[in-house]
């Protein structure tokens, strides 16, 4: 595999892709309600924001232990880097510059920007390895995964860790290819940022060690000198070992004091995480054993079928090249083992979900770090099929088709065919991202009939604010169900929800009750039936005719 040397035009394409993604996400963020966890991160970001303000005004006071601990204790079960970005974005873009029409968007913007960066990086990675067409298709396919598209809007860590994970892997790959110090240092820094984003980063050293070990063994087996490769790998791993923790430490003030106990508490929180409920084929799982096929089935049910077919195509193409390379056939130089790296990147992201003790409550977001690698294979598959198409057209007896083979039109047509369904599915999924399913399971209706999770996180409150604004009397009360308080309050701050409408924590205190459907939440609906003396919802909203959230009104 000979790699493509990228130039300024590729930088331009990557920048255009990032800008396009950010523009699409910002333009569609307005009707997406706030997820439960976003509410907690708004609260944390506000606490960190106050600390940053103090830091800018009076650095000495901000750096006192009491000030640090008071601010950074909030949500200390997650690292601080991305929440710091939420805080700084809010301070700068909203409070100072008033960039966005809704306050919540300022918290979401760093996640949106990192989503744009992820798509751009996928383009670069794909283009460099397999050509520009592969990169472009891979980048497009990532954006057109409905679940990725949903998470890309949020002030959460799931898309940021996708970006940081991919960035670390890309920098590691460049280190192996080019040697020197720049890329190993970049790998160490990006690994540190990943560590300071989400705990998925813990898998990165394993990925790199396994990958480097296989490459060294492969070099030995094929009679090549493994020392240069070993040297580059050790340099990179050394940078990760040294710079990773340093960067994490630098950007997370919470661990500036009592470092080891606080790191231990952070690790223990995730290693012994509580099991929440998640429905899968009509059964709510809440303790081990969890279904081993959950991650694979959910991937198949939520990633567009044509994308998955192209992933399979890419795997076949890469597999064939690998076999030829091992046999010493052809001229496939792959000294940095990029296909193996992509495979490891996807594999390790799914790996934890093979174990029946791994919680499944987060749905597809937990293994989303695999998706850039899946689409890189899809890009490879697409690029291969584009080549096949051109060859077939050149062999055609029709002169017009032979001429067409020289132009861009046939490949554009194939591109359009391959993204038409993902475009429609992603467009149709908004603002119901977590309720969307592909035709493989019959769409949203089929998934509901199969008993796949309808929604979680209580974010679909955003889809009924128009109804509430219209129907709730002045100073009226609404039971918010699964919506977290800061998420509810943000709808009000945004001006999306009337400011006089008050949220309550129980149905009996309220005139209206929201119900976000999850199998294990149904008792909430029954609470409303008894309290309000009716089983008739006054408003039902959902995707493709499948109810996701509905509203009861006291009779």
């Amino acid at each position, binding site marked *: 595999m000979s790699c493509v040397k990228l130039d300024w035009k590729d930088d331009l394409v990557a920048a255009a892709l990032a800008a396009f993604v950010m523009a699409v996400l910002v333009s569609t963020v307005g009707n997406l309600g706030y997820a439960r966890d976003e509410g907690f991160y708004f609260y944390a970001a506000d606490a960190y924001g106050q600390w940053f303000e103090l830091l800018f005004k009076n650095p000495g006071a901000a750096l006192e232990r009491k000030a640090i601990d008071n601010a950074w204790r909030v949500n200390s079960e997650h690292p601080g880097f991305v929440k710091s970005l939420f805080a700084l974005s809010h301070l700068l873009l909203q409070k100072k510059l008033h960039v966005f029409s809704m306050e919540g968007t300022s918290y979401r913007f760093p996640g949106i920007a990192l989503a744009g960066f992820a798509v751009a990086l996928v383009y670069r990675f794909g283009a460099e390895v397999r050509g520009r067409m592969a990169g472009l298709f891979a980048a497009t396919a990532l954006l057109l995964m409905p679940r990725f598209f949903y998470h890309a809007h949020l002030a959460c860590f799931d898309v940021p860790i996708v970006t940081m994970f991919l960035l670390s892997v890309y920098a590691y790959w460049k280190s192996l290819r080019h040697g020197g110090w720049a890329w190993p240092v970049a790998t160490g820094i990006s690994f540190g940022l990943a560590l300071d984003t989400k705990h998925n980063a813990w898998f990165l050293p394993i990925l790199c060690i396994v990958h480097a070990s296989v490459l060294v063994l492969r070099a030995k087996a094929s009679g090549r000198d493994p020392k240069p490769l070993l040297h580059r790998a050790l340099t990179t791993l050394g940078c990760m070992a040294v710079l990773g923790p340093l960067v994490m430490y630098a950007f997370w003030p919470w661990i500036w004091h009592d470092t080891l106990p606080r790191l231990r508490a952070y690790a223990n929180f995730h290693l012994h995480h509580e099991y929440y409920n998640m429905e899968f084929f009509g059964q*709510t799982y*809440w303790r081990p054993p969890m279904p081993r096929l959950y991650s694979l089935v959910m991937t198949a049910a939520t990633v*567009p*079928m*044509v994308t998955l*077919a*192209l992933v399979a*195509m890419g795997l076949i193409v890469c597999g064939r090249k690998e076999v030829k390379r091992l046999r010493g056939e052809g001229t496939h130089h792959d000294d940095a083992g990029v296909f193996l790296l992509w495979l490891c990147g996807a594999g390790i992201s799914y790996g934890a979900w093979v174990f029946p003790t791994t919680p499944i409550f987060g749905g597809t977001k937990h293994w989303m770090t695999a998706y850039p690698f899946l689409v890189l294979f899809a890009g490879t*598959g697409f690029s*291969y*099929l584009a080549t*096949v*198409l051109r*060859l*077939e057209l050149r062999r055609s007896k029709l002169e017009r088709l032979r001429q067409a083979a020289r132009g861009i039109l046939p490949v554009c047509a*194939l591109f359009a*065919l*391959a*993204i*038409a*369904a993902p475009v*429609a599915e992603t467009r*149709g999924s908004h603002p119901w991202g977590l309720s969307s399913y*592909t*035709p493989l399971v019959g*769409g*949203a*209706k*089929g998934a*509901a*009939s199969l008993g796949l999770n309808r929604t979680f996180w209580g974010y679909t409150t955003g889809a009924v604010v128009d109804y509430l604004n219209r129907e709730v009397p002045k100073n009226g009360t609404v*039971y918010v*169900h*699964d919506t977290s308080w800061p998420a509810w309050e943000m709808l009000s701050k945004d001006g999306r929800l009337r400011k006089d409408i008050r949220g309550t*924590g*129980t*149905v*009996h205190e309220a005139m209206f009750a929201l119900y976000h459907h999850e*199998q*294990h939440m*149904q*008792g909430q*609906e*029954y*609470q*409303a*039936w*008894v*309290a309000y003396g*009716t*089983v*008739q*919802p006054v*408003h*039902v909203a959902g995707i*493709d*005719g*499948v*109810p996701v959230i*509905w509203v009861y009104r006291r009779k």
Partner: protein
Amino acid sequence: MKWARAALVFVAVLGVVELGLHVHHAKKSPNAEDWSRLAEAVMQERRDGDVVVVAPLWADPLARQALGDGVFPLRDVARPDMSRYATAFEIGVLGQTSSELGGFRELSRRNAGPFTLRRLENPNYIPIVFDFVDNLEAGRVTVRVTDPAANCTFTANARPIAGGLGGHPTFPKKRFECPGGFFFNVSQTVIADRDFRPRRCVWAHPPNKGEVVVRFSDVPLGNVIRGHGGMYWMIEREGRGASVFVSVRVDGMEVGKYEHRDGDGWSSFEMPLGAHAGKKNAVVEFFVSSKNNQHRHFCFEADSR
């Protein structure tokens, strides 16, 4: 290259097929207009006494929104089981039928737009003579605890209390309030059972010591007292609590005892009435107790038939 050509054709065709399927699934009826038009057909086909069942279950809120409490009374929506109904009326969409009606015999079938409307009869129906949940009201019912002995006062206008997210079922405004706090009340409520299904029942949290006794007077009896017991799902599934016992006495004589163990789910009991069968105005008492009453969010329903 043959396989490569085939792969090219496959991906191209898949792209078109997937797009078509997506559009088909997204647009597939019923839509909001179909649901709003359903009322007329249901009025024509449904008979008084038919319990209305929706298949698939996820469409139930849409049917309730369209047809209202008249077609979906709470007592039917949160039914204990199907055995108490002579006839059922099924609203089916997407060709689906309800597994709850598996033993029923189809009487009629009609297509109304995207809906399939079926009337069915229960071949094993035995009429209910008395429903204890329906009749939980002051006048006919008294409630007391035994240790220490105290009466539970009925109030018709208490403040309803719901547990909120992850909390207890709603305790309605009409309830018997026993000593020990609001959990120790006896009232009609709806629990989410172990399988999350709604069950309308008599909330009867056993007291710390002794029993809570729910006494019904002037009860006409059939041949058996039949019922179910269950607990709020979150507690039931933990499997850590003590058993709850329900002793049923008719005119002072025990006719049966039911034990509910965590994990049993919404489980049934049936107690033959023997010499009490057919009485016109018996006194029926339910004695509810547990050796350890921590988190015993017990709820039962019963009838005589």
